[in-house]
Each structure stands twice: as structure tokens, then as C-alpha cells.
């Protein structure tokens, strides 16, 4: 097997950072929910999409465009309404989620049906979170609709585009009382309630692995009937179950 040693031998911050930025697929963002046309292509749910399959986050063009492809020839499939794009059933309000693989400072997000702007959310020129969600009221529309979602970047001349096909009145979210698009805070992790993570007072011998416990090197636990020995001190947390984190636990 060819060894691709892209991680620097000298792990200085600067070197690692620059490598991280050079990751080619890092760029930009797309609408993940309801799935945009490029997301459906990338998932393989709509076949034969061509290059967009590999970079759904790259539909970038100058601001003010109104096409699904941003005029990029390779992505022209996105403009083709006859490709059998599945329409996601939604209620009269729709929550759109963008996955931002590069967090560009944002002037705003806009949503269009045909020539009508049905939603706008201010970005304040700030860097957005890695994902953002916006709830847009589509109360005046019915049936199948194609929504053009636009992410206007504030520090470049460009915007990112995504078309989302929805079937209105097909269920989904309950109608929202708000007449205008509102920015939902999104699923921000709770940082309010510190968990009861009192360190275990003495090295654990045996016992079942448990989140919240502090383990020291040499501690023995069982997890799903398998025994493990702690090889690096840590407080156990969900997602760090012993079989998943060989840096912390060795099977014995």
C-alpha cells in the first residue's frame, strides 16, 4: 500500500494548520436538509450527476445569479428540472440547514421561489457556525416547488447556490406562527449544566465502563463483556467507549 504521509513529521501548529487548509474538499457549503439537488447527487439518490457528486459544496458563483448551477458548466445537471429530483414533503414552514465546510463571513442568506424572495436571514458580516438552520415560511405556496437557496459571502464577490425541491402540504414541520423568516438558534450544544464528573477516588479494578468516571493508567473495566485496560488517564465520556478509542484502552 502506498503510504501517504501528509501529516508533518514536525507537528508545529503552523504546518498542521496550513495542511488543514489545503484539504481540497474543504471548500464552502451546501444545503443538507431538506436535501438539495447537489446533496441528492452526492448521496447517489439521483444518478449520473457528474462532477457535482464529488463536491456538492462547490456551487459558487458571483452574487445575484438565479440558477441552481451558478452557471458552472460542469454542474449544469442541477438546472435540469427533468431529472426526477425527489421533492421532500414539507409543511408550510421549512427549516433549511446549511453545512458550511468553510465558514465564510456572511452578509446574508436568501431563499427564492421563481422571482420571489421568500426569505432572507442577516449574517451580520460574521463568520457562521459550521451548520446554520433557517426556518422559512412558505405559507403562500402549494404543491411542488423549487427553492433556490443563496449564501451571500461578505468578504468575497461570490455566493453559494443550492436548489431544494419540496412538496408543500405533504406533512413535515407544523406551521409556524412567525410571518417572516426567523433564524433558529440551531442545535447548539448545551454548555449550561456541568455533569457530575467527580473523579473516581481510587484506581478501578474490574467494574463496568461508565461515562463520567475518571480512569487512570492500569485501570481495568469491562465493556460489552470484553475487558480493557486503561492506557491513558481520562474521564470517560459518550463516544469514547473502549473499543472505539485504542489510544485510551487496550483490550486484555
Amino acid at each position: 500500500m502506498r503510504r501517504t504521509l501528509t501529516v508533518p513529521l514536525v507537528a508545529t501548529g503552523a504546518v498542521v494548520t496550513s495542511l488543514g487548509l489545503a484539504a481540497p474538499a474543504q471548500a464552502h457549503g451546501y444545503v443538507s436538509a431538506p436535501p438539495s439537488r447537489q446533496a441528492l447527487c452526492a448521496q447517489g439518490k439521483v444518478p449520473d450527476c457528474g462532477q457535482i457528486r464529488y463536491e456538492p459544496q462547490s456551487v459558487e458563483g458571483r452574487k445575484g445569479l438565479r440558477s441552481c448551477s451558478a452557471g458552472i458548466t460542469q454542474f449544469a445537471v442541477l438546472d435540469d428540472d427533468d431529472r426526477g429530483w425527489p421533492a421532500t414533503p414539507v409543511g408550510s414552514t421549512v427549516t433549511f440547514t446549511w453545512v458550511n465546510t468553510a465558514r465564510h463571513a456572511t452578509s446574508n442568506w436568501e431563499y427564492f421561489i421563481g422571482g420571489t424572495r421568500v426569505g432572507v436571514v442577516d449574517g451580520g458580516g460574521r463568520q457562521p457556525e459550521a451548520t446554520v438552520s433557517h426556518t422559512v415560511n412558505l405559507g403562500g405556496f402549494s404543491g411542488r416547488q423549487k427553492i433556490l437557496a443563496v449564501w451571500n459571502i461578505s468578504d468575497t464577490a461570490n455566493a453559494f447556490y443550492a436548489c431544494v425541491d419540496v412538496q408543500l402540504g405533504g406533512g413535515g414541520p407544523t406551521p409556524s406562527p412567525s410571518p417572516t423568516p426567523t433564524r433558529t438558534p440551531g442545535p447548539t450544544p448545551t454548555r449550561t449544566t456541568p455533569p457530575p464528573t467527580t473523579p473516581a477516588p481510587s484506581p478501578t479494578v474490574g467494574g463496568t465502563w461508565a461515562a463520567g468516571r475518571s480512569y487512570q493508567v492500569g485501570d481495568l473495566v469491562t465493556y460489552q463483556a470484553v475487558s480493557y485496560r486503561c492506557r491513558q488517564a481520562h474521564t470517560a465520556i459518550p463516544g469514547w467507549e473502549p473499543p472505539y478509542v485504542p489510544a485510551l484502552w487496550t483490550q486484555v
Partner: protein
Amino acid sequence: MVAAVLLLAGCAPAASPATPVPSPSNGSGASTVVGGLDRVFLHAMTAHQERTLAIVRVAPQRIRQPGLRTLVAAVEATETDEVAQAREWLRAAGPDPGGHRHEHPDPSGAPDPVSRLRDTPAAGYDAVLVAVLVAQQRQAAELARAHLALAASPAVRDLARRIDESRTAQIRLLTALPVARVTP
């Protein structure tokens, strides 16, 4: 240095008996086929994790709070393994099908947490590190959560779930530490 060793281990496990490739469920390694959005997710997440690793490696010797020191060391160890695993999947998936690519620096306006930490003396280091890590891990959890509904490969979905869970829990641990709060 640790990262390089672990990466080598990913291709030649015998070289580092301390680091078995994690394979708890749903297969891993070359048997995991990633494509489409899974590939996009893995690229984005590994790039994000490289920045996390850079952050935790700036000056761990300046950390004073013992709980923070332990957590940061465990984050470095576990994420180093995760990155190695993700890179193995991406390698097994074959070369990226090129095309419309553009690289550019991180979006402007983002203060560089690495240089900020580098310039922070031991006196205020814990507070800055906690602020930076909370923001960094929140982004990781959000990216992972957004991918849960989109993942095609069970192994990649499992990774996304564990990233969401572990980073969310890390934020709780970080914010519970007796460390002063500063803006990230």
C-alpha cells in the same frame, strides 16, 4: 511526531502494537467504502481535526489545571487515531476525482487560535485554551450532527455519531473546569 507514527501504524499495524485500528462494529479500514457525501464529510472533518490537533499541541506544558491537562492529552490521542482512520478510508476509496477545485485560505475574519495560544503565557493559557477548544469542538459536533442523516457508510455514520457525542461531552467537561472565562 505522534501523528506520523500513528499514521504509519495505520498501514503497518505491526510497527506499533500500541495502536490497533479500531474496528468495533460495522467494519473499518479498507472494507469501508466511502464516497459521495461521506467523502466530503471525512475531508472536512479531518481538516477540522488537524486544526484541533494544532491547537492542543501549541504548548501543553503551559497548562496548569490538571483536569484540563488530562483532557487535552486524551483529545490529542483520540483525534490522532480518528484522523488516521479517516485517512485510511479516504486512501482506500482511491484518488479524488479531481475537477473543479479551488483552495484558499481560511475565511477572513477568523482569528487564528494557534497564534493566539502561542502568544499566551502560562498565566492566562488555560482560559484561552478552554475558550478556543469549546468553539472548536462545537463546530466539530455540529458538522458531525449534520452528517448523521446523510451518511451512506455505516462506519462513517458511526464515526459521526461518536464525534457528536464525544465533542458535546468534552464541551461540558471543559466548561465545568475551574478556569476563567474569556471570549473565544
